[in-house]
């Protein structure tokens, strides 16, 4: 029992040494025109050896450490409780959601401009995660290229405004529908694939879109991106200091108040909030409709679902398209918030972050996804000193999560349809 563990631990420690030393310990230094190799300083050597020891002991006692980690939820006083009756839970959930929304409505008037700006970003991620949740959590399709649809939404607005002078409100539905159309067209050939293959192909698609945007310089401006994307207007009132568009009025003049840059930020925040709420409500409703049940049925037992007349392609395609639609939504808001977009905003990391939010939140659960979106967007901002280790912390958090709570922070417990007895 102990021996194989010991051998394994030793092996891992040596691998750590072999990998860590060249990466951390050896530096390339320029010596005139030549490049030379320089050995490690003592402190680096010490930390590499230390790391090897940590790996060694962790692997040696891995079973007991992991075992204890698995028992951790028992410390949580709530974990042993009976699940709430469904009616009560549904009520509680709507109360919590309403409370969050009400709080979110008044909150921007109390805090700084920077916080509101960040909160808008959180809301964009909430929209994205809720949309991806449909694809991954509800329909069970691993989509690693979700950011492509986000990009389609953002670029649709950017291009429409640049070439045809479309406003935010006109571009919003177009961006979302175009993203949905992309989802439909892409999904059609791809959804026949299963599991891992689907993940890889969607990953590829995400990259193709980004590379296309990068290289189609004539239209998209390539890596330089597109700037001057207009902000949303409120019934034809602009939030800038001066009115840019013929026929519009400006917000501060109409209401006779002093110009303040904050108005614009708060307004954008409120739009994002409204759209996020709409997204959440629509998806909640979809889950209780036949489509929602079809997604779940197909995820649970595809063969049985097909034997009952559910077309695999149609059902999966609907999830894919609806997910893409909301990504387009979010993309339009993002473009408007930034005022400038470039392909750099739509790299694979972005897909990974959105997916992480969905997984952290507990696939399928809306409150979980909202909390996770807040955590994933805000924590890195709070811990800026650790910016270099962001990805490391992120990875470690994901691994711990998978061990400790593979079902996510708040796993989905779907509201079942109840059959009421007519006595």
């Amino acid at each position, binding site marked *: 029992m102990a021996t194989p563990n010991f051998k394994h631990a030793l092996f891992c420690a040596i691998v750590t040494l072999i990998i860590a030393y060249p990466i951390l310990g050896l530096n390339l230094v320029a010596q005139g025109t030549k490049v030379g190799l320089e050995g490690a300083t003592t402190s680096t050597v010490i930390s590499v050896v230390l790391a090897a020891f940590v790996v060694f002991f962790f692997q040696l006692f891995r079973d007991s450490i992991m075992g204890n980690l698995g028992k951790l939820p028992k410390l949580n006083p709530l974990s042993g409780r009976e699940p709430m009756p469904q009616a009560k839970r549904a009520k509680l959930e709507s109360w919590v959601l309403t409370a969050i929304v009400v709080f979110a409505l008044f909150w921007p008037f109390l805090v700084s401009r920077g916080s509101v700006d960040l909160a808008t970003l959180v809301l964009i991620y909430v929209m994205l995660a809720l949309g991806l949740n449909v694809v991954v959590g509800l329909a069970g399709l691993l989509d690693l290229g979700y950011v492509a649809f986000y990009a389609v939404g953002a670029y649709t607005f950017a291009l429409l405004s640049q070439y045809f002078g479309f406003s935010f409100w006109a571009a919003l539905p177009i961006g979302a529908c175009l993203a949905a159309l992309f989802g439909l067209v892409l999904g059609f050939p791809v959804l026949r694939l299963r599991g891992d293959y689907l993940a890889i192909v969607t990953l590829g698609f995400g990259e193709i879109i980004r590379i296309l945007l990068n290289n189609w310089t004539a239209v998209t401006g390539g890596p330089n991106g597109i700037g001057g994307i207009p902000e949303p207007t409120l019934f034809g009132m602009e939030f800038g200091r001066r009115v840019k568009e013929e026929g519009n009025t400006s917000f501060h003049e109409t209401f006779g108040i002093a110009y303040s840059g904050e108005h614009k930020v708060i307004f954008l925040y409120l739009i994002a909030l409204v759209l996020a709420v709409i997204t959440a409500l*629509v998806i909640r409703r979809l889950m209780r409709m036949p489509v929602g049940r079809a997604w779940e049925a197909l995820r649970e037992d595809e063969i049985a679902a097909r034997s009952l007349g559910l077309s695999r392609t149609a059902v999966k395609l609907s999830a894919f398209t609806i997910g893409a639609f909301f990504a387009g939504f979010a993309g339009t808001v993002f473009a408007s918030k930034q005022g400038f977009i470039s392909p750099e905003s739509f790299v694979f990391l972005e897909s990974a972050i959105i997916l992480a939010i969905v997984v952290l939140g507990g696939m399928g659960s809306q409150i979980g996804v909202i909390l996770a979106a807040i955590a994933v967007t805000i924590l890195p901002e709070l811990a800026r000193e650790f910016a270099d280790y962001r990805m490391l912390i992120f990875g470690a958090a994901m691994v711990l999560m998978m061990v400790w709570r593979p079902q996510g922070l708040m796993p989905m417990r779907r509201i079942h349809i109840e059959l009421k007895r007519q006595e």
Partner: protein
Amino acid sequence: MLEVSNLSMRFGGLLAVDQVSLDVQEREIVSIIGPNGAGKTTVFNCISGFYKPTGGKILFEGREIQGTPDYKISRLGMVRTFQHVRLFNQMTVVENLLVAQHRHLNTNLLAGLIKTPNYREREQKSLDRATYWLDRVGLLDLANREAGNLAYGQQRRLEIARCMVTEPKLLMLDEPAAGLNPAETKDLNQLIVSLKSDYNVSVLLIEHDMSLVMDISDRITVINQGRPLASGTPAEVRQNDDVIKAYLGEA
């Protein structure tokens, strides 16, 4: 209504079904029997579109359907159960029945989002239909339970109810009595007979329980190692020498 002629299905080197023919008329119960591994389930899989047969013809109401995708076949009015029960375990009993009525409900998304009266009416109808069939198979009290928590016999009945809410013309049951106790088997017997007499459904049945098969079948097809061995009424099959030798004799 169903006519299968010279059906063959080959898996690599194995000819699992070899030139099997059978037919089912309106309001008829036809059974397929045969020893384990004879190819009965494979015949089902071909008819229901899960496999594309390598040879032969399948006609349903005069249309050739071999190679048609499974979900389309079930929409034609031919649904099946599985040898190993396949329910949506995490959904409730009534939701299992609602999923089955998906295509009756398949209105556009917008109608569902804003709950048009038409949509509500359809939803209510499918709930009513579910209620009716749950009552019919004696599961109404368990309607809001998760399907995975039901007892085995109840799961079997739910699977049949789930087929019936789709209002099929032909019901295909793969060993519905497997794992049932004698009392449950008796109930099943009555249920199948009533499906035929009260709901005008034809039944194609695979079953190992001989007393059940002999009792309710109008006709029986026997297959052995993929090949048709005999067919006819229960009395004829019982007296067929080949059948006695190959199958009944063993037991």
